[in-house]
């Protein structure tokens, strides 16, 4: 029912920030169909591409992580959409057939 535990993404994001690392936070903000992770789920990424948490069952994390580098560099938040109806589906589609929107922003 929660993300509590040793590998809590928001605790890790705070710890990374305290160490002086650049951090981006990705959050599932909307889902349609059978999405693997509910709205509110977090993936946190640092400037070197280290990450913790998840926004899907592993299908779109790679794409989110590469977008995170841009968001960290520019500081501009963006919203990404993934799903079978999306033109990127051939690349990073959700095998479960769902669609998700992910909000990605820099921690600062």
């Amino acid at each position, binding site marked *: 029912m*929660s993300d509590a535990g040793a590998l809590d993404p*928001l605790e890790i994001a705070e710890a990374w920030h305290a160490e002086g690392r650049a951090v981006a936070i990705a*959050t599932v*903000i909307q889902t349609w169909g059978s999405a693997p992770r509910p709205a*509110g789920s977090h993936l946190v990424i640092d400037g070197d591409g280290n990450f913790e948490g998840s926004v899907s069952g592993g299908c779109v994390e790679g794409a989110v992580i590469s977008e995170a580098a841009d968001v960290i560099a520019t500081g501009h938040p963006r919203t990404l959409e993934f799903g079978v109806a999306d033109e990127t589906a051939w690349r990073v589609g959700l095998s479960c057939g769902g669609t998700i929107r992910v909000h990605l922003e820099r921690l600062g």
Partner: protein
Amino acid sequence: MWIRSLQALNLARQARKAAILATDLDGQGEQVILEGEPVADPLADAATIAFMTGKASIVDIAGRQLFLNVYLPPPRMVVIGAVHISQALARMAPVAGYDLTIIDPRTAFATPERFADVDLVPEWPEEALARRPLDPYTALVALTHDPKIDDFAILDGLRRKCFYVGALGSRKTHAKRIDRLTRSGLGEDEIARIAAPIGLDIGAASPAEIAVAILAQVVQAFRRREMTGSPT
């Protein structure tokens, strides 16, 4: 996300306090809302619904798209009494997503053999609950029907606004319990919050069936609970 929002969220979560992060999806800022805090009007209803359901969602507030992410403490169950029903509850509660702790000072009952892999505290509730206090996201289930063990925990559960306080015992046992609790200063409203006889009325007979009835009643209480947080 601002670092001070993240810090506020993490503090609330560590303290088992419910919180909402409201994020403007066009990058026009964000706000952390703690449960029980007054919320400015256009957001108040949406925040109340979010705290009730625990579900994150996008809402339209005054022409702005806000994402409300809800962080509820994981609900847990504290059981007083290492009895037969508790053995069944200890297996069922985790399946329903509830962490469970069993407290019983009677070391003949509270044995690791009877409760393998269970968080079992062989102490008086006065001691055990001082170290790990009850809170609004905890269900208190009193099963010993021994006033020396149950009564303190029931009082403490009501005082700390547990979303569920249930007590095992026949109507006659409960009538005596009401007498004692009234004498110790508890009001009618508070006494009415005690689920007794415990469990949904499904005709449960065996200890395992009673455990099902209790667990179902706990889930019902959590999903239909009112906001219990006090201003901080």
